[in-house]
């Protein structure tokens, strides 16, 4: 199965991705584009946020992984969630992003 076919199969099988993406703002989504564009990028959000829901989907499919939150950040921001892209995600997410953007009229 090609990377594209694999990514499309995941998108078709997991309706939560579309639902979570639809709840994100343009600002939320811009984080993904920036992360894809940069090496070693780590993204941060808060538990329960739209991005947290979307990233949880991506983690489920091996496209992202949770990164540790250091104690200092944890102390001032207990709800912090940090995530980074996996190699698989760096290939799969660019496949589905244009589709999700098109579906949400962006």
């Amino acid at each position, binding site marked *: 199965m090609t990377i594209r076919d694999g990514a499309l199969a995941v998108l078709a099988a997991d309706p939560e991705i579309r639902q979570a993406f639809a709840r994100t703002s343009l600002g939320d989504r811009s984080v993904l584009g920036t992360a894809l564009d940069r090496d070693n990028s780590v993204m941060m959000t808060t538990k329960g946020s739209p991005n947290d829901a979307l990233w949880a989907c991506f983690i489920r499919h091996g496209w992202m992984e949770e990164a540790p939150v250091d104690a200092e950040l944890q102390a001032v921001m207990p709800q912090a969630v940090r995530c980074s892209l996996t190699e698989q995600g760096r290939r799969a997410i*660019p496949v589905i992003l244009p589709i999700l953007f098109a579906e949400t009229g962006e």
Partner: protein
Amino acid sequence: MFGRRVTPPGQRERAEQALDSVALSLDDISRYVVVAARARGYPEDFLANAARRVRFLEARGLPGFTAFTLEMLGGRSETLQQRASVTRPDGSSGGQCPMIDAVRIGDKLDMIAGLPAGQVAAYPMPSNPLLVVPKLAEYAGPNGIIMMATFYVGGDPVTRVLVDGHRVAVDGPYEAILGAEGFGISRFPEETHGAPALWAASIDSIDFPARGVSSLMKFVEDSR
């Protein structure tokens, strides 16, 4: 204390180097691209894309702004309409504008990506073909593939630039990218060669020859 008569080793070189180059941020580069491309007569809709593509290259360590500057300064004897054509005014083929050519190549990428593994689509080489590479990245990402631009010198494939949507890899000397005599495009066969190590953007500013910036600005002023 201040009576030193001899310039410490390296200081003169460093001073000369400082005069010879200017530090440009990626935003500076975008502005120069927009101003110069506008002066050359490219349509307004085209400018932001041109800037984004040059920026894509420079942020990943590829000499996109050099290629762009060479493109603006070279071929000035031709009109933009002539630059858009694969045929030169003297009847020869190749040397056309790579940024306009990228649009044309974009329509052929489905066919090129569908070629058997290892087969390269040869094409009349545009001038400064590096400027086509971001278009390959734009195609590769949504299709989940890696595209490969091959730069030939003396008929030999010397340097390959690989791109997925956001990342690049370079195999071979960088000099061949700007000095290529031939250019080919293909899909990188991951199924036989494995996944290459690609890198995303990590560069925010570059040192660029001051003469290049000066020539580009003179070109803009002369175009008014």
